[in-house]
């Protein structure tokens, strides 16, 4: 559960995502990224792809996460529509990606993303109305 939103930036775009946990914020960020690239409702979660990543801190982990997804998308021509973050700490992450190979006849490609940047990347964790709330902000180079 959670949300993502794509906000304006002069040359690029800002992706904001959030939820009750770090897992939610990361899953939503991934969904936001792929919603920008393609119409995710047309992407069938046919295959599963396990991912394991490490980074120095939560922000670096978010950058690594989105960039790893872009790498899989661009190198292996994969599209994803579901993301399950199974375990996450401030420096590591295990997840399963659900998706399939790009098929020109069924999929709609929207915009290309070159990379997730480190510019103004921020993860804030706070308590809202007595419940935990995590929000992630990142700028994508498009």
């Amino acid at each position, binding site marked *: 559960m959670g949300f993502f939103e794509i906000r304006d930036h002069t040359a*690029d775009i800002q992706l904001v995502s959030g939820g009750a946990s770090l897992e939610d914020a990361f899953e939503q960020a991934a969904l936001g990224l792929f919603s920008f*690239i393609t119409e995710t409702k047309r992407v069938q979660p046919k295959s599963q792809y396990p991912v394991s990543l490490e980074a120095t801190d939560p922000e*670096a982990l978010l950058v690594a996460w989105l960039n790893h997804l872009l790498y899989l998308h661009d190198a292996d021509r994969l599209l994803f529509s579901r993301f399950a973050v199974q375990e996450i700490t401030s420096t590591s992450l295990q997840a399963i990606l659900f998706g399939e190979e790009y098929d020109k006849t069924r999929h709609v490609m*929207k*915009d*290309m993303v070159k990379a997730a940047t*480190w510019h103004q990347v921020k993860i804030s964790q706070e308590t809202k109305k007595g419940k935990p709330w995590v929000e992630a902000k990142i700028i994508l*180079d498009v």
Partner: protein
Amino acid sequence: MARVATGLKRLDEFRWKIEEDYKPGMRVPGIIYANEELMKSIAQDQAVEQVANVAMLPGIVKASLAMPDIHWGYGFPIGGVAATSTDDGVISPGGIGFDVNCGVRLLRSRLTEEDVRPVLKDLVDQLYVNIPSGVGAKGKIRLDRKGLEKVAAQGSQWAVSEGYGWHSDLDATESRGKYPGADPTKVGPKPYERGAGQLGTLGSGNHFLEVEVVDKIYRPNVAAALGLEEGMVTILIHTGSRGFGHQMTTDYLVVMDRASKQYGISLPDRQLACAPFSSSEGQDYLAAMACAANFAWANRQCITHWTRQAFEQILKKNAEQLGLHVVYDLTHNVAKIEDHTINGTRKTLCIHRKGATRAYPPGHPELPETHKPLGQVVLVPGDMGRYSYVLVGTEKAAEDTFACTCHGAGRMKSRGQAKRDRKARDVMDELASKGIIIRAENYATITEEAPDAYKDAGEVVKVCEGAGISLRVARLRPIGVVKG
């Protein structure tokens, strides 16, 4: 924003200064090239803050510069220039960007608009077919890892040796299409995997291939020396290092993030992550960046080959008869090691150009022989509905801006705003009313790249000429556009 306004001091008609005490940590002042009109849009977002942030890089000399097409980027502003000392300064991938050697190539022809107009639609269609573009496009060239390493080491020179283009193309390419010191072993496996299917593809976003007509000549002698005449059909190609460069930079930003901490470099923005130029991290990045630059040159070289084929197919003459020669090919996202004079002393510097073009003066030893009397050719693409420009470099640029000038029109509207403002059909109608035919992979690109999303390149180049950092040679008017 009030701080921005108070932090800026107008030096003259075309220059604004950000004083060194504007932000703690600035080592040099910032200088922005703009007239009053352009400054209004520049001051609206965080571009000015970014010029100030760049001024904090260790070893930066003289000033953090911004060209008139400056706009808010990530880390560095787009249109930003930073010269760092190779002795005690840093190298920062953020000062180059993900799309290493994003650049522009101009071809001329013996054709006039009258020759092309009757077959323009077929020609644009053929270009669109021959040159893979758009998201998910697969290139026509299949190379294994060894082959890709050759591309990374040799750039355009690899492409020409494989039959993609002419030897004379190399003479008209910056650095002869091969960045020296490229070491393919300094690039990890991921960039090779990502770049494998993308050599010879245009990409999407602001990348394009356009058929243009030389619409106006400002300096007849220079234009004649470049073989440009009023009414002549030309081709402008704008693309870069594709997934290879994006992934190489992604990988090295992780290395640089770690290195910044290790070397105790404190920065206001992690995207400015850097390492001392002479450190192993700095030198490894430079050798890998060179590989990405070479990938981009090979990319534009292959696209040139297929462009010639498209003209041959439609005009029914061979490319030699059509006179499809490269006028010049340049890079506007790169770091280069160059000698510049500061306060009378010659220094070797690492010039980061992030959306800025090199503009060497006449006589510079690095210029192609035939360009030596002219100065370095500068190609400034405008938006798809308005003019692009050919300029040349000047002595003043060598003195004041580390031989840098603008690289394009500069975005004014975000992509979201551009999409909300107009429909694709409306943009296509506007282009059609100007006699411009467009082929694009999707409608989103057409609205995102609508002419009114950009500043007028004409205003930008006027400021460059007014400030003396480059001079107008010719104006190009688009008639056919291929977009990703």
